[in-house]
């Protein structure tokens, strides 16, 4: 113990409630310990939400990940349209194409691809940090029924991911808009634009929850991260290579590919699958990919809850 830190509270140190243990049994000052036994303190879900927010906000990794995620979402949104309207043809409806209109919201399509990785890591770390530090034992002693603590964490992490992503994308779009040609329409508050803007932020919130589910299930940061990259990056790649080489036009393999967790979310926030239907034989729709994404999220989250409730902490 360094000298700057106070010794055990005793009569010798200034801020004392105790007599020196050497001379007499230490006696507590009744006033300090006055038993507030009648206080109506009890576990509340609102309190758990606040506790989980305090936890998330007091982790250094949170702010690193969210800053980078925020920066990437802002940067990709601000530059993608300017960089050649790369995504616009995927999204634009036939009507818009005929009119020569491009929607500004299409600039947001890339945001989840980059920020998704970081916010999934945020979800993973928000729980694996508790396991690695041992904090989980304190958390679960305070919330022995367990599931409310994880539910509160899921809500806080997902909301945080949603809000920061939505703000970053909105800022990026607004920043990029002044220099764009007249054919670009500011559609962020039209239904089609809202779908891309808030839909992509929603997908990022789902990814954070997926991370949380994986982390709860696996408990180890490293293993959870490896599992995540395996599912999100390696699996689609292997699958793609396999199907292209073996059977390029198999309907079943196409269906699986389009509903993998790395691909399906784009169907939530863009009409790409519906728009492509007349031209391409893609066996996917907005509905099917949305359901697939929800299942991919709820699967690890569900197993996470199950694991939390069933396994020893």
């Amino acid at each position, binding site marked *: 113990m360094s000298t700057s830190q106070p010794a055990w509270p005793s009569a010798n140190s200034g801020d004392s409630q105790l007599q020196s243990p050497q001379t007499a049994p230490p006696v507590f000052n009744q006033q300090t310990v006055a038993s507030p036994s009648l*206080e109506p303190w009890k576990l509340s879900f609102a309190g758990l939400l606040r506790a989980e927010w305090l936890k998330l906000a007091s982790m250094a990794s949170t702010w690193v990940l969210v800053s980078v995620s925020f920066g990437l979402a802002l940067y990709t949104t601000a530059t993608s349209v300017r960089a050649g309207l790369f995504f616009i043809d995927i999204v634009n409806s036939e009507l818009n194409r005929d009119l020569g209109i491009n929607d500004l919201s299409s600039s947001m399509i890339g945001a989840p691809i980059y920020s998704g990785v970081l916010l999934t890591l945020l979800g993973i770390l928000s729980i694996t940090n508790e396991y690695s530090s*041992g904090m989980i034992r304190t958390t679960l002693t305070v919330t*022995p029924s367990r599931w409310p603590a994880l539910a509160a964490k899921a809500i806080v992490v997902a909301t945080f991911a949603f809000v920061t992503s939505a703000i970053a994308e909105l800022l990026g779009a607004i920043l990029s808009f002044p220099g764009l040609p007249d054919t670009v329409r500011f559609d962020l508050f039209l239904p089609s634009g809202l779908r891309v803007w808030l839909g992509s932020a929603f997908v990022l919130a789902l990814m954070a929850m997926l991370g949380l589910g994986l982390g709860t299930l696996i408990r180890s940061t490293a293993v959870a991260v490896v599992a995540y990259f395996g599912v999100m990056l390696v699996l689609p790649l292997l699958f793609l290579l396999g199907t292209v080489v073996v059977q390029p036009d198999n309907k079943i393999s196409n269906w699986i590919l389009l509903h993998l967790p790395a691909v399906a979310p784009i169907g939530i926030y863009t009409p790409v699958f519906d728009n492509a239907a007349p031209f391409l034989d893609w066996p996917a729709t907005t509905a099917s990919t949305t359901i697939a994404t929800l299942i991919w999220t709820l699967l690890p989250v569900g197993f996470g809850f199950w694991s939390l409730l069933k396994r020893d902490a």
Partner: protein
Amino acid sequence: MAVIQLLSVTKMYGSKVAVDDLSVSISPGMITGFLGPNGAGKSTTMRMIVGLDRPSSGNITVNGQAFVRSIAPMRTIGAVLDTKAIQQNRKARRHLEILAATHRIPATRIDEVLSLTGLAKVAQQKIKTFSLGMNQRLAIAAALLGDPSILLFDEPMNGLDPEGVAWVRSLLRHQASLGKTVLVSSHLMSEMQNTADHLIVLARGRLLAATPMADFIKAASGVASRVNSPDAARIAAAFSEPNVQVLTLEPELIEIRGVDVKQIAVRARDEGWTIYGLNRVEVSLEDAYLQLTAGAVEFISGEPTPPMQNPATVRTWHATTPAPAAPMPAPESENYPDMPSFEPPAQNPTHQPQSVFPPTTDQNRG
């Protein structure tokens, strides 16, 4: 009425039995000492009480119901299970704020426990800068935050300086005097003997004793005689009876436990033994505890094992040698200046009880 009730609780980790058919109850208004060597199942039992681990079989109730059902867990149990159950990269006060938030406990209570544990000045420091003792105090502050009616402290004195030990002890006393239920574990009898009112002794997951401290002392302490004689071997042979233990300390020095000096003196006259020295020694409570648990120690270090490894013999000896109300020797008295020190009359250094436990104190989970 017992506040915590364990009924036939068994905990298996794989095929390893950590707690074996444990039935015990813990009552309010006193300090219950939870004793046993490392790996005896103390921590596992405490983890099961707060619901971190589930019993493989059996039932645990806290205030008549499963702790999981408590609507105000922090008002029910305050636990210090390990001081590392904390996120190191936070400020101390923030850690308490997080816990307080869950139960809507006001900030004034945080200030209260901070000053109670002497952490007020370092509340804005990161926890990772804390010493072991400060971590311990923070864990205690967190446990007291909800003003719980039950305190579970697992090895709270580990790594504390003497003043800290005295402080924890007085805190536990005070909480017990308020009518709260206090369960405190230790693997050191010396920590417990001035602290606990009631003892629960575990070894290898089994209950060895659940008894008031006074009874344990009465049953455990006993007399022994030390004989310095060239006829030591003959004397040892002469006293090889079931209720008697003979230790050979040196070739010409033996300790006979369970036999008074007078008996030996009379016998020596009859047998014609040469006696250079004959004196009485008190057997310490620490010794008695070591003997009680000796057969059940799991981690045997490279150190020489202490005398009297056979628990069966020890128990017989306990049972047949009611002790005079002897003062309690404190084997580690030099470390605890606040405790009364009673040196054994025979100043032979070999009498110091040798620990069979490894010197590490942080591997007490289990």
